[in-house]
């Protein structure tokens, strides 16, 4: 499952807003605001990526943080994006 590629939903609009990004779904009309970490994840998903790849990249950025914690954070973000139909397999 975790090596499955995840990509942005074609109905998702990206609105960069400084260090954050506002995402808007053209179908549901919902908007969500991502914090800088969520924004980084969203930027990585400009091309399809796996959850494992995201965790590995995040671990490189934050070598002082436990990998399990980073993985948990990424899972939370991906879950929120998925619930809002902003990403898809």
């Amino acid at each position, binding site marked *: 499952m975790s090596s499955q590629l995840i990509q942005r939903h074609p109905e998702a609009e990206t*609105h960069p*807003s*400084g*260090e*954050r990004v*506002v995402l*808007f779904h*053209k179908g549901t009309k919902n908007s969500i*605001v991502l914090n800088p970490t969520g924004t980084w994840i969203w930027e990585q998903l400009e091309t399809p990526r796996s959850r494992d790849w995201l965790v590995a990249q995040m671990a490189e950025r934050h070598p002082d943080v436990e990998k399990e914690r980073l993985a948990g954070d990424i899972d939370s973000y991906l879950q929120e994006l998925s619930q809002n139909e902003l990403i898809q397999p």
Partner: protein
Amino acid sequence: MKTFDTLVNMMGPAPRPQEVDDWPDLIALARRHKLLLPLANTPGLPPEVQAELSSEVTMRSLSEIHRAGQLVELVKLFQENGIEVLSFKGLTLAQLAHGRVTGRECIDIDLLVRPEDFQRSLILLLGFGFQYEMENLPRCYTKFHYGVPLCNQAKNLTIDLHYQLFSGGVHFPTECIWEASEAIEIQGYPVPTFRAEHLFVYLALHGTKHYWSQLRWLYDLKALHSRIDLAQTELFARVQKCERALGLALGLLEQLWGTGQPIEPMPSLLGDSLSRLKGERLSWPQYHRFQYQCQSNVQQRLKLLLYTWFTPQIHDLRLIDLPSQLWFVYYALRPARVLGEFLLKGLKRV
């Protein structure tokens, strides 16, 4: 660098945030020119500046997204009622020039309808919860003015409903614009708007009318510049008889960001516009001299002169509420009031 030059640099193709020595001043200036959104998205901003701007620009982005949803609803409302409508400036400009509705800060929604549909559109919007933004609007206001601002407090939305794009003093027929109108997708819906070349010429004239007091207008033109066919744009400006306004806009773009356009020899207009952009206040006679100089021929200067002196403005219309059969009297009221004010000022000085 002075703050204005720094802001110009930050809005250009090669921003140098490392050279900014007074961020509070720069942020204040960007706010005044309504350029906070693009400033916040400039690459390489120091983290503390990003953090400072974060909440404000996020709110502005959400606000523009919300406004875009309302624009789509309005366009659908007009279409369902069989009224042709074009959205211009604001959100459609943001989408066309910057690729997203949050690419620039908007204030209201500008809509153009055909003159014969204006009253019907007004009734439609009043029935949809909008009201006149100006209190005690004279009954004859839309007879003498090319549009009217409406607001809907529940929706926190202002619309400028137009049936022409400029006042009677400026030659700018809209037939070509209607014929060549295009649709741009906003939130998945095709919103009718101006063709890019037509929008560019309109914005050049609009900036000239407002004496280029905001850098945001040139920032939009810079973004739009790469999306237009310049030969088509110049041809349209000739048809609309506003070559000088277009030349001035292109000259300003060249001066600020070096867009590679040849500058027409109009140094005084360029100098005045740059002074205004930098915040210099100009007197009433300076403003009118600038407007006359920006007209492309003698007939247009004369038309503007007649309009300035004889077409009643809101202050004239508020002097007295005349019945529609006597509205022509306002044409005499206008010069009488303006002359009267001059005389009174002169007497006070004596």
